[in-house]
């Protein structure tokens, strides 16, 4: 009867100490965000403007994509269209095969995570190296990223040190972040220089100029796309915005919402391939046009993948990203996964893994009504575990029958002390009780206390 996410959280962050560490690390990002946001007088107006620009862009997506394609081609890029994950993987594979490429460096792209591009390429014999430090850590550890911005946020320096010792030969026991980074830098620098192709995502695609905007702090997307002769950029169709002026609005929001920086270290606007090189841009649908057709759910396509909703979410902070088992995690992942039709059998239960506190909505830089979206999924695609669904039906039936309700609540009141004991014996109630105390019962129902109060006032 427990939600799938709840059960997995117990294995991904197994003990109170690891949960507390994760919670603290993630919450720090939220605090940095708050400090950065407080320093920008027009931040709330920017959020409103960003949401409106995205709504406009999504509503005109067809013509913006065509304009983007035309301008990108005029600048020398080749634009490909991929209706689904399989098509993306096939397009990339044939581009690489036709050029006899075997070694690829890759910068962070949630879209390629969603489409399973890495495992596909590895299965087809390509050597694919993730170059963002966090992505490299999870790649070496053979696990998925657990956070949108900090992929290895669930790992301690000790764990990363042990991993690097095993995989790239750092000294045993080395856990100093600076020296671990230096070792990864040496290892990856050689791979950058030898790579035959670079694969990247894109934070934005600018329709008026056919440009891609890539944002990183490490500069890995730049090395990975400036050095090899071939650059393949993979992006979801919702990344297109009308103009470079619009990009300014999003860029002022993005890094502040993500890590509390005023802007990321590198924001690169690429228009066409570099001299003597090739630029291929793959536009991917993979369920997005289905979302677009839905009047309410389309709003989730405003998402710019900053991770602010993760950092503030009480469920994500306690459960960790791996508990979601979706490429995009946290509140936004819980509404994207069922919409994009991810095969995970329990992605439909993710909307229930929320307290609906609305904190995600309060921080979202593009004002996605995330907690309303979660609620709408519960309404439109109910996926409660059977026990809970049955319980909800019983309560609903009682509430429709005042007499039955009174009798039942009176019985419960009498049995209250007993419930406290019985509920510890086992089953789902015991799981619920493991971290919660039954509140003390006030001894009378609301109706009784109301009558007593009215009687007292009559006397007075």
């Amino acid at each position, binding site marked *: 009867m427990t939600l799938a996410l709840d059960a997995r959280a117990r294995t991904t962050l197994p003990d109170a100490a690891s949960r507390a560490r994760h919670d603290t690390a993630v919450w720090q990002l939220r605090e940095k965000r708050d400090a950065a946001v407080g320093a920008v*007088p027009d931040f709330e107006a920017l959020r409103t*403007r960003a949401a409106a620009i995205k*709504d406009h862009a999504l509503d*005109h997506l067809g013509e913006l994509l065509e304009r983007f394609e035309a301008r990108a081609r005029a600048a020398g890029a080749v634009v490909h269209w991929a209706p689904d994950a399989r098509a993306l993987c096939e*397009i990339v594979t044939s581009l690489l095969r036709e050029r006899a490429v075997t070694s690829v460096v890759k910068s962070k792209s949630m879209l390629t995570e969603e489409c399973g591009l890495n495992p596909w390429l590895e299965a087809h014999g390509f050597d694919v190296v993730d170059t963002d430090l966090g992505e490299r850590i999870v790649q070496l550890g053979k696990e998925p990223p657990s956070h949108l911005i900090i992929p290895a946020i669930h790992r301690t320096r000790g764990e990363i040190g042990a991993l690097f010792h095993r995989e790239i030969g750092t000294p045993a026991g080395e856990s100093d972040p600076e020296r671990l980074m230096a070792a990864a830098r040496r290892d990856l620098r050689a791979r950058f220089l030898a790579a035959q192709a670079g694969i990247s995502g894109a934070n934005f695609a600018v329709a008026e100029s056919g440009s891609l905007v890539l944002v990183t*702090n490490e500069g890995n997307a730049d090395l990975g796309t400036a050095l090899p002769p071939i650059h393949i950029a993979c992006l979801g169709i919702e990344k297109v915005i009308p103009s*470079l*002026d619009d990009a300014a609005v999003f860029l002022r929001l993005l890094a502040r919402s993500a890590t509390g920086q005023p802007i990321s270290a590198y924001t*690169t606007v690429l*228009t066409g391939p570099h001299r003597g090189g090739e630029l291929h841009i793959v536009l991917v649908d993979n369920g997005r046009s289905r979302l677009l057709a839905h009047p309410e759910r389309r709003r989730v396509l405003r998402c710019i993948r900053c991770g602010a909703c993760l950092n503030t979410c009480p469920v994500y902070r306690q459960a960790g990203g791996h508990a979601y088992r979706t490429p995009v995690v946290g509140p936004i992942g819980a509404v994207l996964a069922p919409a994009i039709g991810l095969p995970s059998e329990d992605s439909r239960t993710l909307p229930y893994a929320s307290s609906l506190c609305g904190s995600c909505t309060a921080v979202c830089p593009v004002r996605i009504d995330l907690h309303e979206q979660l609620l709408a999924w519960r309404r439109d695609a109910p996926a409660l575990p059977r026990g809970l669904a049955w319980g909800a039906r019983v309560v609903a039936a009682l509430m429709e029958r005042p007499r039955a309700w009174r009798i039942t609540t009176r019985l419960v009141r009498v049995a209250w002390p007993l419930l406290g004991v019985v509920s510890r014996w086992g089953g789902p109630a015991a799981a619920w009780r493991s971290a919660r105390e039954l509140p003390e019962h006030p001894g009378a129902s609301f109706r009784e206390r109301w009558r007593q109060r009215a009687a007292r006032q009559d006397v007075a």
Partner: protein
Amino acid sequence: MSRVDRASAPGPAALRRSSGARVSMLQAIRSAGSRTVPHPGPHPAPSLDASWATFAGVLAGVGGEPCGPVTRAELSAAALGWARDRAAGGRIVAEPSAAVLLEAAADVEIADASAAPTSFADVAVAIVRGELGVAECGAVAVLGRDAPQRALLFLAERVLLLLPAIRLVADLHRAFSALPADALAHHHLTWISGPSKTADIEQTLVFGAHGPRALAVLGFSEDDDPAASRDADR
């Protein structure tokens, strides 16, 4: 509506396959949009400070090193001094756009635009001209025109950007409007705010993740020498 893909070059198999995909994707996307939601127009950003002091403060806050501003006459000595101090005998490479601002020196290479990008892998200091600085985020725009070897900006151990001190704006909105008309005509436009960095291991900030370990912005004024100023604005 179902405009056929007008591929200019005969594409490989994957390209031909994707032309059918293009038509069906665009059809689905078009039918989902009403084309009635208006664009909200430009963001009316409040007037914030665009002074060198503010820019320098923010730049230092993101791990960058603000230098100067110096006069045009002092620029060459200041830039070469910074570079030599840090290069410790290693390669110093200047993009032509920056080299014209400096006196010729035997130990400063001028980047060859036709060289392989990988040939800059061992550069100690790169000197590049910056186009525009943004006070609110400490970022400097580097134009493709001024830095045709984009890889140099990322391979060098340290990067020195030469920025006309009057070319400062308050925010990114004003920055994009103040760029020259051909800012996107040369492959890349790169905004740089401090050195390469990561906090991927337990949120510990480390500089020099993949790219430069240090980034300095040397401001210079152009007004003390009209001839030099024209030269710098070329």
